């Protein structure tokens, strides 16, 4: 009798889980305090804007977004993930900015069958050998901006380039990405100390080497310092400085000031991209937050819109993880970046643009994209190594 009752209860529970949920719960863990907070705040603001424009709903269901701060600490992120997954029983996890933090916290979601949608970090191993059916990168593969920059240097007919990056894995991977597409000669490749402030010594070497192009991967404050000193050393007249998009984003423009004008950078999105979804996003973001959205904000916004589309397509049956995953893979939403689809490793295939920093017409500076993408429908170099379990 007891056994029967239990069986019935289990059957009921199973039936219930495949029924439409009454709301969507999203766990959002990001870096919202400390020196690197600006990036996480932009992702959050973009995400919440999409929910707000949707009338507080995702896929027709009332949305509950649980926002928490990882304080730039991997172990804190892990605790937040565990709490959101086990106690709050969220349907999706998202939010993390930095790959080292994400990789520490990620098993808490994936091992408990909760889908993680990355609004920023998209490390190469997760695109290749370690690809996972419940992991989606809604941003751009780690190497993509660097590959686009290499392609742009080819297009401009630059014969040689000098490369600078911090001495750690991401620095080496980035320069490898540039070299993958660049066909000219690499005349110098310098790895600096992580967190270095002053680049006078490196700039003196660059002046002596006289390269045509200079490509740097120096995230955060390092890039701001380098750009200021590069312009101050008078090198911008003779050498074309190429940057990955995040080193010439709105936050960097604000910190560097007028010396940013005229610099080239590569990204998958730009505030001036001419599509209806993007026009709506940029106008709404500027109205809501009184600032120009960054790449990070656009990624947060797209992540929420992807969840919205998937929940709508499974008609709210969030218990059926397989169906939800298929709906996410189909990605039936209008991305602010234009064409967007998932590769078999659940990393994006999309276009990349060259952007240049120019006047916004009100005394400020803003990124403007070239109309023709530099890389069209571009995936990543690791997809062959991914044996995605179905």
């Amino acid at each position, binding site marked *: 009798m007891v056994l029967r009752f239990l069986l019935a209860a289990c059957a009921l529970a199973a039936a219930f889980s495949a029924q439409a949920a009454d709301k969507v719960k999203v766990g959002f863990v990001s870096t919202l*305090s*400390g*020196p690197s*907070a*600006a990036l996480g705040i932009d992702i959050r603001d973009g995400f919440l804007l999409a929910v707000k424009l949707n009338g507080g709903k995702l896929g027709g269901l009332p949305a509950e977004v649980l926002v928490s701060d990882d304080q730039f600490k991997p172990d804190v992120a892990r605790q937040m993930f565990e709490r959101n997954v086990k106690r709050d029983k969220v349907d999706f996890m998202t939010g993390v900015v930095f790959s080292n933090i994400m990789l520490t916290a990620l098993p808490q979601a994936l091992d408990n069958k909760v889908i993680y949608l990355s609004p920023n970090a998209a490390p190469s191993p997760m695109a290749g050998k370690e690809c996972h059916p419940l992991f989606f990168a809604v941003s751009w593969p780690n190497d993509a901006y660097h590959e686009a920059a290499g392609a742009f240097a080819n297009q401009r007919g630059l014969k040689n380039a000098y490369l600078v990056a911090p*001495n750690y894995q991401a620095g080496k991977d980035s320069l490898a990405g540039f070299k993958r597409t660049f066909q000219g000669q690499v005349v110098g*490749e*310098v*790895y*600096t*100390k992580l*967190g270095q*402030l*002053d680049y*006078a*010594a*490196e700039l*003196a*070497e660059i*002046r*002596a080497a006289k390269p045509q192009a200079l490509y740097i991967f120096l995230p955060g*404050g390092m890039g*701001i*310092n380098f750009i*200021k*000193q590069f*312009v*101050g*050393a*008078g090198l911008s007249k003779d050498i074309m400085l190429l940057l990955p998009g995040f080193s010439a984003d709105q*936050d960097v423009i*604000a*910190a*560097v*000031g*007028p*010396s940013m004008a005229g610099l080239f950078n590569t990204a998958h999105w730009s505030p001036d991209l001419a599509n209806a979804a993007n026009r709506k996003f940029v106008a709404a973001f500027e109205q809501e937050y009184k600032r120009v959205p960054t790449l990070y904000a656009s990624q947060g916004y797209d992540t929420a819109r992807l969840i919205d589309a998937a929940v709508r397509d499974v008609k709210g049956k969030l218990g059926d993880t397989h169906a939800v995953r298929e709906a996410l893979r189909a990605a039936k939403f209008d991305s602010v970046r234009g064409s967007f689809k998932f590769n078999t490793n659940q990393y994006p295939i999309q276009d990349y643009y060259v952007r240049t920093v120019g006047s916004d017409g009100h005394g400020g500076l803003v990124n403007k994209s070239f109309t023709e993408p530099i890389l069209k429908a571009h995936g990543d170099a690791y997809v062959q190594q991914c044996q995605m379990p179905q």
Partner: protein
Amino acid sequence: MTLFLEQALNGLQYGLMLFLLAAGLTIVFGVMDMINLAHGSLYMVGAFLAAWLTQVSGSFWLGLAGSVLLTALLAMLLEVTLLRSLYQRDHLSQVLATFALILVLNDGVRMVFGTDRPLSVPAGFEQPVALPLGLQYPAWRLLIIATGLVLALLLYLLVQRTRFGALVRAGASNRAMASAMGVDVPLLFTAVFGLGAALCAVAGALLGPLLAVQVGMGETILIPAFVVVVIGGIGSMRGALVGALLVGLVDTLGRTLLQQVLRESLPPQWASAAGPALASIAVYVLMAAVLVWRPQGLLPVRGR
């Protein structure tokens, strides 16, 4: 050759800026026996104030002057209200309290000024200037070198030739005795703290156009400043100058000359792996070597 000269100038410029930070740090450490981790935060406050005042007044020089004044005032206020009660405590309490101050100041600056602020090189200094021997060097960095040298000289005169300097030196070598001889030690401490903060503000404002003026900039420069203090000898102003110039030169040449030597003497894959690693530890190797050779630092204060 010109490349070597340019690198030497770079080392000198970096060293002199470190000196401005280390001078305040070493004197607070030496005179008050106080470990002030928040010293770097005063440098950050100085840079933010300079950027803000430059924007408001339209002149970098007004911004610089205002920032020096306001940072010194803020520091003296902090000293009177908060840090004074820490002098009698052990170093652990001081480290904890001033670390808390770093967090408070970081978030305070973020609330008032935002995460970062633009600050550009003032008009007339944007371009490199031609020096003898065909050398091109950024005008702004030359100005920093000149300012650093002048301030170092002024500090030397202040400490060695004035009554105030005599009191500071007396306080640094024997605090109890100085107090017994009738020196108003609390007032002296407040003045010294304000002076240290003013030097921080000069460094913050001058480096602002070269570096990112952003929250957290103080912590990154605090560590090399401490290395300078330890190399030079705690409490010693001359030691701070010598230590700062050594650190500046070793760091710059380690990043350039050392790499070149390695490239020419080792196989490429070894050189590319060892070079950056060695460059980033060169300064700490120097510190370790100095400590083995002279545990009190290069030019320790007499009587400690």
